[in-house]
């Protein structure tokens, strides 16, 4: 499992997460430069590279954002090295400006861009379908269904990238990225890292005006040749059962479709597409020629359905095509085996052996009164304290809170239900600028340190330059917490623990032109209220920095240093049940004793941040003594 198998020199079998298999594939392909910004569901690619990097000589960085990460790979691939970057769907939006241009200029060394969409928006702000980036940028796109295919496709992608001088997009989705399976490892045969000479004529990677027009003609030709190659590629597979009913699918859709066929006991012909841009039109035409009925199984947008429908116009106008347009499948949310089995059964006029609706209805009945357990701030999370102090400081003050992407996004959930807008990384600043133009209320923008470095700085430049009346509160917890506490530009180390130059938030902001900077410690939850209140009362733009390390990160460091993490307990005889530690607080470590209705702290969960202890009006929360 994990990094130990990823670094294994020789061949063999290993149980790997798809994201780990992608890393193994890149290492087998002798990748030399890796740069990425974390984002679920791709984070484990970055984390695995980072963990194994001390054992190899590839260059790696955790970049400030996805655009920088992609450009870093682009630059290294221009020179001639093999590179990889990975990003979540919405990260591609950030990187896409240069992604389009790199398709025009091309690259020399193999460049693979892994992009993972998130159907169901498990950890994303939208259900964006990134498959449009392939055709829109004329970048070849591969889609694996499982870890074995992912590893194989990474290697195929490097070969393709170098053969045609173009970056290759590998598109996955959450249920592919976060699928583990048994993968065949091939030997690692790595050459020593070596800088290469720049061999290109001037202007080789410049695309604008006439250069862009020349590149465009060339990339159309390139795409045609790649399409010809894909027509015969073994990354696409046809299972011809002789049936006049067929399924066309790819990625996660294939997994569910194949399972649904097992469930329904049917054996349709299946075309599984691994190359989803450019599509192998002739292969698709040949496949549907023999069919009376074809079902398209794909999550999100009807991308394959659109193309199959267009191809069928000439190839087989009488074939009946079922998918989203016929209402058998939805463009919303992710699929699973039973959704796909139900959809296929509906087309065929049969029923699955299990009445899924009835099972779900019965389950709902059994679960009556079972409380939801949504993600929430961890015990010890400094955000809980900052938000408490911020709400105290703004009590009675009408204001609008433009928040941003990070753990603190969860402030919009219960119990706080606090926050008025959340669009995308760094958007709090631009939105706040608009809010202060239009709204009568005080405007507050809220962002974490990692998101500040990622995409908030241009918005702050804008707000300073235009003298916007707003307050930016930066929750500085030292790391990119939500994705697993990766170091950000504020830290003195980067991927694999390599030394890095730390940037100091207040110095950067001061240099940008703001001198009104207030720094508070959220763990001093009561003492932080007045400085926050005063800062908010002054004319903006000004900045509040609430600084305290992510509790998970701090605990990990404490354990490394051999320090124990203390816990608190409630002194029952002192507790008068004001529930200050519960209402508006929602710490997973605190519950109510069913018998005496007093607060109770679970020893195994408490982090001893002492924030609840400071808030308790009776002082009933105290350090737990040994064995207490």
């Amino acid at each position, binding site marked *: *499992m994990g990094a130990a198998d990823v670094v294994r020199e020789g061949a063999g*079998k290993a149980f790997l997460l798809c994201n780990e298999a992608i890393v193994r594939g890149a290492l087998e392909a002798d990748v030399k430069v890796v740069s990425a910004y974390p984002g679920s569901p791709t984070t484990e690619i970055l984390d695995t590279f980072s963990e194994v990097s001390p054992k190899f000589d590839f260059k790696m960085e955790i970049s400030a954002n996805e655009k920088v990460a992609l450009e870093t790979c682009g630059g290294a691939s221009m020179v001639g090295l093999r590179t990889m970057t990975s990003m979540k769907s919405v990260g591609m939006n950030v990187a896409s400006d240069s992604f389009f241009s790199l398709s025009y200029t091309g690259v020399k060394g193999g460049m693979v861009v892994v992009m993972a969409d998130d159907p169901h928006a498990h950890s994303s702000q939208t259900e964006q379908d990134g498959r449009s980036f392939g055709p829109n940028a004329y970048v070849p796109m591969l889609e694996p269904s*499982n870890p074995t295919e992912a590893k194989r496709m990474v290697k195929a992608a490097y070969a393709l990238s170098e053969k045609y001088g173009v970056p290759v997009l590998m598109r996955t989705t959450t249920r592919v990225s976060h699928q*583990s399976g048994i993968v065949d490892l091939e030997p690692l045969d790595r050459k020593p890292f070596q800088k290469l000479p720049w061999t290109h004529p001037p202007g080789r990677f410049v695309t604008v005006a006439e250069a862009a027009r020349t590149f465009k003609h060339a990339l159309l030709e390139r795409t045609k040749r790649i399409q010809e190659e894909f027509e015969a590629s073994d990354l696409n597979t046809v299972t011809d059962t002789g049936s006049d009913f067929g399924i066309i699918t790819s990625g996660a859709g294939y997994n569910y479709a194949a399972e649904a066929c097992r469930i329904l006991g049917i054996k349709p012909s299946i075309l599984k597409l691994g190359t989803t841009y450019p599509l192998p039109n002739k292969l698709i035409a040949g496949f549907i020629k023999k069919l009376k009925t074809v079902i398209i199984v794909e999550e999100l947008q009807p991308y394959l359905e659109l193309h199959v429908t267009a191809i069928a116009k000439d190839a087989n106008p009488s074939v009946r095509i079922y998918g989203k347009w016929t209402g058998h499948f939805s463009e919303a949310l992710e699929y699973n085996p039973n959704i796909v089995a139900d959809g296929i059964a509906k087309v065929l006029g049969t029923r699955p052996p299990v009445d899924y609706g009835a099972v779900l209805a*019965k389950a709902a009945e059994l679960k009556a009164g079972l409380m939801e*357990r949504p993600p929430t701030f961890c015990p010890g999370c400094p955000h809980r304290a900052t938000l408490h102090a911020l709400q105290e400081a703004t009590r009675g003050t009408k204001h609008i809170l433009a928040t941003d992407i990070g753990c603190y996004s969860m402030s919009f959930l219960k119990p706080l239900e606090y926050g008025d807008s959340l669009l995308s990384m760094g958007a709090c600043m631009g939105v706040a600028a608009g809010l202060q133009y239009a709204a009568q209320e005080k405007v507050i923008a809220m962002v974490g340190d990692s998101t500040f470095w990622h995409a908030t700085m241009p918005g702050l430049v804008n707000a300073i330059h235009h003298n916007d009346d707003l307050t930016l509160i930066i929750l500085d917890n030292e790391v990119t917490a939500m994705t697993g506490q990766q170091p950000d530009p504020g830290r003195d180390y980067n991927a694999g623990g390599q030394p890095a130059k730390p940037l100091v938030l207040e110095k950067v902001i001061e240099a940008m032109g703001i001198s009104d900077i207030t720094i508070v410690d959220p763990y001093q939850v009561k003492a932080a209220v007045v400085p926050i209140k005063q800062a908010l009362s002054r004319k903006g733009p000004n900045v509040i920095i609430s600084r305290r390390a992510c509790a998970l990160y701090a605990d990990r460091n404490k354990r490394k240093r051999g320090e124990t993490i203390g816990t608190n307990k409630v002194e029952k005889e002192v507790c008068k049940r004001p*529930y200050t530690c519960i209402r508006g607080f*929602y710490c997973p470590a605190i519950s109510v004793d069913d018998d005496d*209705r007093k607060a109770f702290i*679970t020893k195994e969960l408490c982090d001893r941040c002492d924030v609840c202890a400071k808030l308790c009006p009776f002082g009933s929360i105290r350090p737990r003594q040994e064995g207490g």
Partner: protein
Amino acid sequence: MPEKEFSIYLSGVGGQGLVLLSNIIGSACAAAGIRAITGEQHGLSQRSGSINVHLRIGPEVISPLIPVGGADAILSLDSLEALRYVEYLRPGGVVLMNDRIQHPTIETAAHTKDKVAKYMSVEDVKERLTKVTDKIAVIDAMKLAAEAGTSLTENVVMLGALSTLEAFPVPEDALKRSIEENVPKKAVEVNLKAFDLGKKAAHDLLCNIVKCR
């Protein structure tokens, strides 16, 4: 040896070591030449929220997600999280659940308003689950984990219990070797002890209702 199919739904609360548990089983399968795949949850959902891993063993399984009504067993590190995914259990499937509940913060908040409300208990959960299966074993994994040496081994206690099932197609020695390879070196001994304690507990709590090895 013809491989049998076995799908198990693992659930718990973020931070309980569910992904490590599935990795131990998956690596054991890789070493024993048994096919296994998982559908896991990483990211936002981990933050003290409900989490799950779909684990599927067998030569023909393709979907990383178990179909509704398709799990041979639910193994849960928190009783509430066994009930939360009950739709995945096939009728008469096995439920192995920890005798422990981390009360959801939303439920706790409701308790500050309603002075008589009781938390949903392990007994409540068991009572409800009996409507879909009579094969329910409740194991005090926290107690056994502490007995093994650290409360952090609850997940491996539950694995020890699972390993006794005749229908669970992963050999015990492969599981133990996988524990040795997947937990930190200094924690190997306590984890192997936790495994054995879980196994022993299952003999009393599980093997009287389900066919064991």
